[in-house]
């Protein structure tokens, strides 16, 4: 019993100091580094604080709304989070997105569990997407040289075979595909030589020097005089397209825009 008396006040002081430090830390954390912020807000409060745009919010905060919506941006890598209430007043909770801090025992259990269990098989999607080498474009033809830079997205420097199959050209144009080659070294060298090329719509096909096809795409070959207007018309059309189109629909629209740009200037 004797030993307990001197320890008790010391323990109380320690507890008080620790609590004070903790609350100071919490306050500093509250003001210093929030988990997100308010983007737009009606009449909402966080505790006693009336929220206004750019006020900080934290994961697991309870926000109380009396009218209007609230939009919150979080540091979770996602888009903004809008919250709407059907009935007021209402309360919403900011979702926790950080990993939960576990106890020592839980972490030990997790480590041994990892050794004891087998790894979950992680799936892969064996599908090509997003990195097509070619795209629809208006190409400038000037002095027997066709500039391919707008049609080629990303290919390694090197020599490639270029074929142009006429789709819609002037009647006097030589029928049948035209072939040439390009030593691709962007941004300096992006031209292929085609001495007898008439403006019009073509199917551009690109192949490596070993013959491996890199794909084909519809392009509009424009003379030096028509190029600025046709390019502008095509770019304006691309900008007006709705967002979120799937690739097939997008390709159909882009082809149509090329035809439109090609015939519009005639």
């Amino acid at each position: 019993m004797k030993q307990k008396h001197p320890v008790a006040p010391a323990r109380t002081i320690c507890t008080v100091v620790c609590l004070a430090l903790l609350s100071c830390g919490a306050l500093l954390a509250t003001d210093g580094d929030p988990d997100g912020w308010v983007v737009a807000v009606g009449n909402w409060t966080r505790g006693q604080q009336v929220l206004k745009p750019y006020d900080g919010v934290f994961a697991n905060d309870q926000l109380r709304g009396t009218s209007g919506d609230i939009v919150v941006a979080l540091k979770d890598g996602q888009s903004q989070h809008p919250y709407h209430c059907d009935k007021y007043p209402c309360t919403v909770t900011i979702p926790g997105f950080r990993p939960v801090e576990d106890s020592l025992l839980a972490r030990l259990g997790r480590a041994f569990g990892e050794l004891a269990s087998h790894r979950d098989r992680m799936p892969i999607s064996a599908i090509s997407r997003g990195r097509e080498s070619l795209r629809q474009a208006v190409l400038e033809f000037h002095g027997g040289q066709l500039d391919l830079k707008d049609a080629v997205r990303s290919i390694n420097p090197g020599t490639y075979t270029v074929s142009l199959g006429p789709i819609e050209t002037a009647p006097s144009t030589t029928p049948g595909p035209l072939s040439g080659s390009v030593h691709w070294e962007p941004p300096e060298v992006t031209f292929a030589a085609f001495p007898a090329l008439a403006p019009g719509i073509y199917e551009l096909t690109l192949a490596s020097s070993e013959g491996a096809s890199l794909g084909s795409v519809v392009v509009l070959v424009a003379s030096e005089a028509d190029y600025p207007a046709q390019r502008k018309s095509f770019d304006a059309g691309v900008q007006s397209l709705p967002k979120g189109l799937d690739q097939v629909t997008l390709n159909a629209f882009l082809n149509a825009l090329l035809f439109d740009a090609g015939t519009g200037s005639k």
Partner: protein
Amino acid sequence: MKERSARRKFWRYFGVGVCWMAFTSGIHELADRTWLVQRLETANLDALFSGKKRIVSPDVVVVSITDDDYQNVFGGISPLNAGKLMKVIDAILAGNPKALGVDFDTSGWAGPPAKYAGKPIVWAREVLGEAGSLTMGKVLGGTEEVCYGVPAYFPDEDGIVREYKEFIQGADHKYYPSVAFNLVEVSQRGPQACRGALPNLDRNQSSELEKINFRGPKHAFDHLSIGVLRTLENLPASAVHPLHGKIVLLGGAYRAARDAYPTPFSYLDGVDIIANTVDMNLPGNKELKDTPAWLNAVGYLQGVVLLAGLYFVSRTWSLLIQVLVVPVYALLVNWVAFQWAGTFVSFVPCFVGIVIHEMVEHATEYHRLQRENRELHEQMNHLRAAATSASTPFHGEG
């Protein structure tokens, strides 16, 4: 005389035990680079990562282009439009970060934008080709006069990314810095600290494979999407920008980027793997280190003490200690060393040596007892036969 015999017996036991320990340690060293040992080591490493406290530096922030951003801002077209990407970079730089790493392929750009001259930006530079003959891709259309880094990582045999190199040696025998290395340098000492291709490395620089000390899963770091970044454009002057004074990494988290890799923390986007590498290289943060020589010596000493101690306990206790206590102790010490010092401690070769030694001792003793038992039986049979023949009446001449 008896005491002398007991001492000799102990030293014989001890000497043979130490030889076994040395033998298994030698075998371990020889087998260290084999597929089997490496698989065991990576399983152990993944378990250690699982049990780790998931704390990351608040100074590292990832700005990621999500699927929504890819569709809404970039029109769903790859490679991303350079002009739009520059707008994103401008928005990040408006927050005055310490350093910005751009984890996008800029080889097709027309050239380095003049407005970024002198800014603390590290541009990712792709590495091409096979190991041993690596060539560097282009950055910002092909200029060498910008601050760049190579975001190269090396999957293990099981396909999981656990290793990187601080410097990559190119086919031209020059050493190219990693994105993580230059980002840390630029964030600590400013844009002038950025390194280009080096003919030689300093003593404290390395082109060897190093383990990534993964700090945590995807959401351990702060992440801002482009949509959220845009909301900061009208941030009041009084408010602190969330990117102010941070090391910011800009990368793609959209599906079409195909830039996600399996790691001990499941799939991580390439930009998140770089964030982990940057964090582990920040001053004060522990990198993963090979076991220091003194710790190896301590491990061996512990084995020697255990070997000597086991001589003086009964067979039952010896078996219990070896089967239950020692493996748990070894795992715990390894775990503690990893959590607090970022290093690995393996007493396994020593303990395996001791266990083999004990098994051989048991087997030898068993055979000795068997032999003695057999001899005893033979002697008893002889004696019994002699006794039988002695008790039989003599039928000689009579």
